[in-house]
């Protein structure tokens, strides 16, 4: 038992952090609203796109514990690209015999996103809606839509292009359930990241902003708001890490652990939004201040890949042996 990441894992995440923080700041997110500010070449160059692909196909064959913190870093900067989806599906596509496609994906030449096949009528794929294919992925099945018909759907989070997906799909012959769990984990990891940024902004603001002759961060109510958000964020992290471990070890309770990761990370991010906005006050409510860029991402991520309530049902079905919802 050693509940900590390896040096290699931390070094990888650190390298990605450095690259992302340099390129994907708030200014870049704002540019992404109007221009096509494309981070995919950067990710390819950093080797990030190859992380989870099999070595036989030019990938690095890394597991969830290796890339989970990369996804956290993507979340911190609200990376406007479906990196989590990419990391989740390459292995499935490889299993299903789409080796060439996977090779092209690891270099960034081919772009394949994924969409959650949940209870709703429509499925939405995040970003590069113009990608050549979409994997429609549920907890038990996966289909590959080769020539998807996209309908672009603008969202509150302007840097995140969403598209509803139509088109014929072929069933993918691989471990769909595992790929689904990877997608959920990547989503949870990004939520963890964005929660941290949202909270950091509030802490910095609380130190700087003065009212009643002192920094607002010295007021007990403000302090306790921020501590509550920190608490949720801190206790969510090990839950996300454990889910990565369970994916890599194929733990019999893998799906429970992944759903818990989503629940804890999403709740942490949502609480961070509430508390951070409240501590900021009016300034946090404006378009010119950066907070909303990250809040909107948090909300979008929370709604994607199954809501908290959906995942709670999934955990309950296994743990409590009931079949609610």
């Amino acid at each position, binding site marked *: 038992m050693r509940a900590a990441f390896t040096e290699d894992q931390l070094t990888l995440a650190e390298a990605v952090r450095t690259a992302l923080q340099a390129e994907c700041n708030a200014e870049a997110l704002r540019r992404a609203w109007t221009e096509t500010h494309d981070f995919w070449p950067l990710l390819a160059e950093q080797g990030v796109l190859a992380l989870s692909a099999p070595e036989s196909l030019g990938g690095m064959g890394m597991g969830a514990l290796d890339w989970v913190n990369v996804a956290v870093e993507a979340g911190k900067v609200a990376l406007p690209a479906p990196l989590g989806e990419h990391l989740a599906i390459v292995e499935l596509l490889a299993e299903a015999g789409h080796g060439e496609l996977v090779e092209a994906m690891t270099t960034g030449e081919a772009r394949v996103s994924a969409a959650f096949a949940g209870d709703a009528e429509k499925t939405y794929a995040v970003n590069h809606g113009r990608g050549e294919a979409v994997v429609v992925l549920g907890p038990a099945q996966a289909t590959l839509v080769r020539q998807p018909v996209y309908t672009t759907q603008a969202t509150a989070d302007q840097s995140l292009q969403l598209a509803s997906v139509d088109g014929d799909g072929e069933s993918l012959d691989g471990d769909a359930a595992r790929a689904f769990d990877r997608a959920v984990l990547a989503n949870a990891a990004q939520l963890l990241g964005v929660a941290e940024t949202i909270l950091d902004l509030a802490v910095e603001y609380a130190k700087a902003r003065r009212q009643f002759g002192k920094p607002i961060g010295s007021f007990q109510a403000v302090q306790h708001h921020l501590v509550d958000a920190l608490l949720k964020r801190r206790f969510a992290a090990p839950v996300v890490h454990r889910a990565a471990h369970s994916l890599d070890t194929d733990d019999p309770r893998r799906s429970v652990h992944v759903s818990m990761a989503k629940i804890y990370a999403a709740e942490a991010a949502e609480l961070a939004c509430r508390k951070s906005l409240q501590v900021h006050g009016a300034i946090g*409510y404006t378009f010119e201040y950066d907070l909303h860029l990250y809040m909107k991402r948090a909300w979008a991520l929370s709604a994607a890949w199954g809501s908290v309530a959906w995942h709670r049902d999934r955990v309950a079905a296994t743990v409590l042996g009931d079949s609610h919802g």
Partner: protein
Amino acid sequence: MDLTYTESEQAFREECRAWLEAHVPRTPLASHNTREGFAQHVAWEHELFDAGWAVVSWPKRFGGREATLIEWLIFEEEYYRAGAPARVTQNGIFLLGPTLFECGSEEQLERILRPMARADFLWAQAWSEPNSGSDLASVRSTARRVEGGWRLSGNKTWCSRGSFSDGIYGLFRTDPDSQRHRGLTYFMIHLDQPGITLRGVDDLDGEEAFAEVFLDDVFVPDADVIGEVNQGWRVAMATTSSERGLSLRSPGRFQATADRLLTLYAERGRPERLRDRVLQSWMDAEAYSLYTYQTVTRMREGGHIGADSSLNKIFWSEMDIATHETAMALLGESAWLAPDAPDATEGWLHDFLFSLAGPIYAGTNEIQRNIVAQRVLELPR
């Protein structure tokens, strides 16, 4: 305790309902935080005023119909139930208006109230300064005595829809040697005066919901001072306990939202997993309404709302967020689609974002809790 409506209250409700059914625009207006939408809302306000519905509880001579407070609650219920437009006159009729009723001169009442109520002259509040938000008394903007009036300089911010308004009102320091609550005076300022610069500030929706106003030696005549010079704090506080004030947020809006939530829940197939949250929102809207009817009854019988308005504000603002969060959860991924997206669902996203402002504006909920602790529970400072 009689929670049934009298015949005349019932008749008043039916009159409201009939008029609103006949007149509320079938297609929703554009957002009132945009210039285009604001103009549409102003036109609606004209129609409302001309039919005598703009300020039902006001005296007839100012365009009201002298409705009782209970009738006002009924009007609000019907107004929101009908899905009628947001009130762009609200910072006039619910904030400046009550202040004038409490502390204004007869001349001011005559000159200001009707144009305010008819949306012929639009008012925006200007309470905050860049360094004076929760700490409302730390006003730095100044007013200097000159012949026939004052010269105002400084910087006011978070003026809701200030970009589309004709005037603002707020506190300025008239006694340069004064500290905090003392030495402030309550001014009304026309935005077309020389020396005024306005900068629009966009909200979470990306709409120009606020303005920052820079004042550089702006002239304001004595006639536009409310109450006594250097007594502005007292004037501002008098409003907060006014029965006509925004402090008594009407329950109609929340009940209408709760009803929409119930409809949405049914449309989405009554997902068990969200049942308790939907139920809580509906019950809380009921509870808020019942509480308000008790408050209004007390006020009709000579009571004051006082610091209780802070309890109200905490309750409705937190309820409002919870209700909209639940709606977003019911909608799932499509909740976050922009209004112009093909699959967008109407209104909830905008309203959710607006609900988040509830615990911030008009005094943060932290400040409200302090006020309740100190004035209702009488805990020490």
